[in-house]
């Protein structure tokens, strides 16, 4: 259903694709290979400044920061992707049902999403983590649940708009099944909006994951994640600024890349 209108290749799209592509590639490679071990410590190489040997320098345990950024980037992207997948999956389903059928279910779901939206998302995720315990799966689960309402709202409003469209009415008259109407007839028309919110959601997930790991309740040390690296680096801001810069700039790079990418997509659909 690629763009009919809009610019297929715009500079936002290109820049976004390049930035996210590079990050994702680095992350994927990081799962299989890193220049140095991400956990091996070396007393001799504590706080080495960035050099050809260690591109981003080394940290307080003498670990190569570039390797850890690669691994951390991968971890962050995978967690964010799963969070988006989880929350958008449920969000689309609930949004479609409530938007199309309305009624009591709609009322109930909307009030629940209102309630969830009423709390700052990080706070809510913190509460869930404290209930579930920290760790990777729980992080994905709790962030996933926190992000559901945003998708429900967007998808619901689109379904609300489209359910009375002529072509839907005709499809119904022809006796097309409800599930088919919902997901084959309407869903493709929701996609342009959904794409953009997915990208934004991805960004939010990256920031949330980093935030949680930074607070020490997401990915646990010694495993690398951009957030917990940033947290560790905090104590060495003045003595080893490169330690904080590497994960910090990586987060900026990722988020900026996805923002540009989503802007590019939006323009393509316009």
């Amino acid at each position: 259903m690629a763009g009919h209108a809009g610019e297929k290749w715009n500079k936002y799209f290109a820049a976004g694709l390049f930035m996210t592509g590079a990050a994702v590639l680095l992350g994927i490679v990081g799962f299989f290979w890193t220049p140095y071990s991400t956990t091996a410590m070396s007393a001799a190489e504590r706080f080495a400044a960035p050099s050809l040997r260690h591109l981003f320098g080394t940290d307080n345990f003498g670990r190569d920061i570039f390797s850890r950024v690669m691994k951390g980037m991968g971890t962050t992207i995978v967690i964010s992707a799963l969070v988006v997948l989880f929350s958008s999956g449920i969000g689309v389903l609930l949004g479609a049902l409530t938007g199309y059928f309305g009624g009591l279910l709609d009322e109930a779901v909307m009030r629940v999403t209102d309630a969830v939206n009423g709390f700052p998302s990080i706070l809510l995720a913190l509460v869930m983590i404290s209930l579930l315990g920290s760790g990777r799966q729980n992080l994905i689960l709790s962030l996933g649940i926190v992000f559901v309402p945003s998708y429900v709202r967007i998808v619901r409003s689109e379904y609300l708009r489209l359910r009375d469209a002529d072509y839907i009415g005709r499809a119904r008259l022809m006796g097309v099944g409800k599930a088919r109407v919902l997901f084959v007839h309407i869903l493709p028309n929701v996609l342009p909006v959904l794409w953009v919110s997915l990208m934004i959601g991805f960004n939010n997930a990256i920031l949330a994951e980093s935030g949680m790991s930074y607070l020490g309740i997401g990915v646990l040390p010694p495993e690398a994640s951009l957030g917990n690296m940033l947290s560790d680096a905090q104590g060495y801001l003045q003595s080893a600024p490169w330690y904080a810069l590497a994960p910090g700039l990586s987060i900026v790079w990722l988020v900026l890349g996805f923002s540009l990418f989503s802007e590019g997509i939006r323009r393509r659909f316009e």
Partner: protein
Amino acid sequence: MKKKLFSLLMAALLTMAVLGGCADGTGESSGDNSSAESTEDMASGQTPGADPSTQAGESPAYGGSAVVGIQQDIDSLDPHLATAAGTKEILFNIFEGLVKSDENGNLIGAVASDYTVSEDGLVYTFTLRDNVKFHNGNAVTAEDVKYSLERVSGLLDGTPLISALSTIQAVDIIDERTVQVTVESADAELIYSFVAAIIPAGSGEEEGAVPVGTGPFSFVSYSPQESIVVKKNPDYWQEGLPYLDEVTFKIVNSAETALMELQGGTIDIYPYLTDSQAQTLRSGNTHQVIASPSNVVQALFLNNTAEPLDDPLVRQAILYAIDKEEINTFVGGGTGSLIGSAMLPTLADYYVDLNDVYGTTANVEKAKELLAQAGYENGFDLSIDIPSNYEFHMQTGEVIVEQLKAVGINATVNPVEWNTWLEDIYNGRKYTATISGITCDQTPGYLLNRFQTESSKNFINYSNEAFDETYLKAHGAMDLKEKAEYYKQLQQLLTDDAATAFLQVPGNMTAISNRLEGYKFYPIYVQDMSTVYVK
């Protein structure tokens, strides 16, 4: 045999290079990665005016205020109920016992000006000081002393609040200024337990809300999770002290915040700097940063009854796998002293160097061999619970995880909140391994008594009859040389049984704002603010 307070102490001191005395029974320790003390030799020369009255040049000024950063919230304002070391370090300023510790680890008279011990060690006679007043303005009477001692010893209601003092059989008022205490069995270290706070007769539970003591500072307010404020006690019996009008103990939960607060000037004194923070601050020239050995024994505590650590071979394997030198370098910047058992090297007469038993560096071959012998050729999973507010322990955990990986043990760090740690791990003993620290409050025996099978503080569930017997012998020994010998045997037993992986006595980095002078380093875990003054 009447002996003056000081002469008795001098005798004791002859045998101890540094006396960290402690006979406090309930006192708990907690995972303090670093505390604020030093031995006399370390601090001297660097200490900003160990004794302000002898400071050359400037004479201390009165007035002003100071803010001290502390690491954790307090557990009780009632001095007899407080068990966390982090609480006692503050209450030291509000309360005093019949005797109190000074910065050299000696006992000096506080509420009592003098005391004598009968030859058989069973009767203590305290002479009360004349001019001691409570913060509420009332003079301290023999009644108050009797009440306080009966309260802590359990004579009042059957529950001893400080277990070391449960040996007290009777407290008798001889006259207005003399109190006689009879104890069940002789113990040369018992006198250190008389640092237990003297509170007004009948005040009991009220102490928890509005603590009233005789210390240099009186209680003003307490905001949970935030701060404790104390103000100058104008009636303090030590002439000329304290200097400051007000001191705030501010709870700073993270080490990072502490650094920023120090730099921003919102806290003046912080005794728990990390190595890198110390470096940062030193370059700033706004603070004095002083290194001193702490009184904390840091260890990877192994639950002796939790599988697979109930197998001594597995525990030995872990001990062989750990590289203490590396931990010291990475986490303490090389300022710690490595140990092989539960004793501070600064307590030289009691300390026996057991570092060689398992080595200070990793012996991977040996560890693997022992694991294979125990039937864990392929290693096992080990979750290490660590109080997350202690950056020092958390980082130690990261290093240990990596070291254990080398021998095939798949360890993970599990950060737990401090209160959860106290409840589930320290008191509940529901854990396999944890990294924390135990502090030596007063006497050397304090570090060892917790490993008796029945001790309520034996959270590693260590059990060895020989240890229990030897401890009782040590406890009963009136001769300090003999006592030291027993203590050395106890350390040896702990090491031979691989009871727990003792790591190091971390060095301590204290930052003191340049605007303050007179901070004293203690060999015990206290923050004495009475001698601090504004330049």
